[in-house]
């Protein structure tokens, strides 16, 4: 017990992500979380981190929708990332329950719950483990409505999974698999950058009448803290958000990488006098082509950045569409600053990730093209 407690403590004292002590050094995280201003239009707010904002969304849902159930591995005691703490005690063991360790079962079961008309919120413990459920998601959930002539659907299904790099997650606790699902008509794929966004987008996913996958940046679970409205509210899907306006370069990302790009935008302004427009895509599928293209028509330059490997990553879809729509407006080739085409490494993470210096360098190249 004491040994395990020490493990907890070691983890506890890390503020963000820590490389193991074997190197003799610790690295600070590759980003600084930048909270959004306190929203005033949704009622009273409370200080919440990302996992607490998720709990709040789930709490609101269980309170207002008597059919809603939450299930997955270890959700009963509160979840390995604490997203479901307190919900089983509050709403009952028939509504918040553990399933056996089987992702294809979790998603298949969730589809069945949704088909029967109840609201199904399925948790996959890490996005890295979603692949056994790929057949159920792609061949079944996404196609249920179309193949049945709209007689049956699983619009009531939402799948949540922790996503993205965390400093030491390595191959199987760091993946960003959104590109695999972006290729699947019938699904919606959503990734929030912060607690306020997470609660509103998750509630939209739950309300949406299509099967949704909601990826939660795990590195932000404790690191991201904002004043989040206590009452339910929704943020629309498939609407990208322009976080700051600019005139020279459009920067597009989602999730954790938004905070990297915000810093890059400051660096570009300060060191290069370059004005960047930063866009949070939020919904990967269906994505907001109009907002991105409108921005590129204005700036003439586009940089897209994500942790997932560059080849076949979602930046390639954005790049391809933008060059079709905005070819004559482009002043430079579209730049993708992404992970390398390798599995996500452990000790080499600081070299692997698309950090602010790589993005900064890419902007320099585009400006000087």
């Amino acid at each position, binding site marked *: 017990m004491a040994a395990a407690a020490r493990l907890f403590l070691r*983890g506890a004292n890390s503020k963000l992500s820590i490389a193991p002590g074997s190197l003799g050094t610790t690295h600070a995280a590759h980003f600084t979380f930048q909270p959004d201003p306190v929203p005033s239009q949704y009622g009273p707010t409370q200080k919440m981190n990302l996992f607490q904002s998720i709990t709040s969304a789930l709490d609101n849902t269980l309170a207002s929708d008597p059919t809603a*159930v939450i299930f997955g591995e270890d959700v009963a005691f509160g979840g390995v990332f604490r997203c479901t703490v307190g919900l089983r005690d509050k709403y009952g063991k028939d509504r918040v329950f553990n399933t056996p360790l089987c992702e294809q079962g979790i998603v298949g079961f969730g589809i069945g719950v949704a088909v029967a008309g109840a609201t199904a919120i399925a948790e996959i413990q890490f996005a890295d483990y979603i692949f056994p459920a790929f057949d159920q998601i792609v061949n079944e959930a996404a196609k249920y409505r179309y193949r049945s002539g709209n007689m049956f659907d699983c619009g009531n299904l939402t799948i949540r999974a922790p996503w993205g790099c965390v400093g030491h997650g390595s191959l199987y606790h760091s993946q960003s698999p959104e590109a695999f699902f972006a290729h699947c008509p019938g699904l919606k794929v959503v990734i929030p950058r912060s607690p306020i966004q997470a609660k509103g987008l998750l509630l939209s996913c739950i309300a949406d009448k299509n099967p949704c996958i909601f990826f939660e940046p795990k590195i932000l679970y404790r690191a991201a803290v904002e004043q989040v409205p206590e009452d339910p509210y929704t943020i629309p899907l498939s609407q990208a958000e322009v976080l700051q306006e600019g005139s020279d370069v459009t920067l597009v990302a989602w999730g954790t990488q938004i905070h990297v790009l915000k810093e890059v935008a400051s660096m570009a302004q300060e060191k290069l006098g370059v004005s960047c427009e930063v866009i949070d895509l939020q919904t990967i599928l269906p994505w907001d082509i109009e907002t991105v293209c409108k921005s590129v028509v204005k700036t003439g330059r586009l940089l897209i950045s994500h942790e997932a490997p560059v080849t076949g990553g979602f930046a390639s879809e954005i790049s391809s569409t933008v060059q079709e729509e905005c070819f004559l407006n482009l002043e430079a080739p579209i730049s993708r600053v992404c992970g390398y085409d390798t599995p996500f490494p452990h000790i080499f993470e600081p070299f692997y990730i698309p950090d602010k210096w790589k993005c900064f360098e890419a902007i320099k190249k585009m400006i000087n093209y």
Partner: protein
Amino acid sequence: MLCLLFLGPFFATATMRLLINNACIQSFQVLQLQQTFDSSLEKPQFPGASAEFVDQLEFIQPNVISGIPVYRVMDRQGNIINPSQDPQLSKETVLNFYQKMTMLNTMDRILYESQRQGRISFYMTNYGEEGTHIGSAAALDPNDLVFGQYREAGVLMYRGFPLDHFMAQCYANADDLGKGRQMPVHYGSKDLNFVTISSPLATQIPQAAGAAYAVKRENTNRAVICYFGEGAASEGDAHAGFNFSATLECPLIFFCRNNGYAISTPTNEQYRGDGIAARGPGYGMLSIRVDGNDVFAVYNATKEARRRAVAENQPFLIEAMTYRIGHHSTSDDSSAYRSVDEVNYWDKQDHPISRLRHYMTARGWWSEDDERSWRKQSRKTVMEAFERAERRLKPNPELLFTDVYQEMIPSLNKQRESLWRHVQQYKENYPLDLYEK
């Protein structure tokens, strides 16, 4: 975050609050204990199994007790063996069973032929398995939700799915409830509580568990039934569905049609254990093996399973032994992997339709004349539906683009418009006359 992955071994002799570090994690709540511990007893204390100790090294041999027996009510000649098992259904009910089985058989013959003649693209027959469909469907409530695999058309037929709708789906014409999107025999009916069939095998099994869980929470005394073949039972989804339904206490009947073949793969290449029924106890599930060609045995088992599944909120596994008399589909020629003699045995000596007919004729409920006129009438009915379906136009190609999401999305709308512009320009190359406008 890695710390959270090591939560496993925290069980202790009493409930414990773990206060690790206020900055890190709030206190954990009570961890549920699985049993009280007393090491003074010489009994195993493991949370994972309740058992006795044994000091002889012995491997449990599968099938050492000869396989799970096959429950039946009628012998192969349609005689009731144990009168207490005769469900004593009314003449009207039994005639209905017979007429549904034979109507299915007639429809199968005509649609198989129509594929051979190039009128429809594909077909799968149900020859030899009609008893599994009708017997089980009759034992259910009309509101019970059905998840199928692809060889359960008789369940739909029993529930009253019109011939016109079967035909419309196979022809993918404008009357198809599925809007022409799927291959033939991928039927579905919202009104008849029959979830639309999909080609990937066994995917319906964990879905049925989820639906049953939701139905349990509704408290309306509905059950869910899930059909699959012995081949599909090898899929991981089957294991998932069995385990979930047992641990989550779902009112669900698993109905396995063990028909001897998965396309060309015989059962001795599909599994090495005692069929599918023997797997049930491994999941903590009540299980039975029945003679699938005995419509009363299928009826009795399904009826009792349904009653208890709903009353006790637990799943039941029924393995219905039968034989696939036809080819796997119109894309298969089963003479490549099995003998004509084998097929003939089942067709002539142990067929669900003949056995029921013997039962009926023994009671004076069905004569040669009845048989002749019914065959003529059912064939005529099927042919008329067939001809109507042939004449019908295909659905409007706009339906290519709808129902991907509940709502039309801008990018898809653009693609739709681009298709129409293209078709306008190249219209002579597209078979527009076959489709509704």
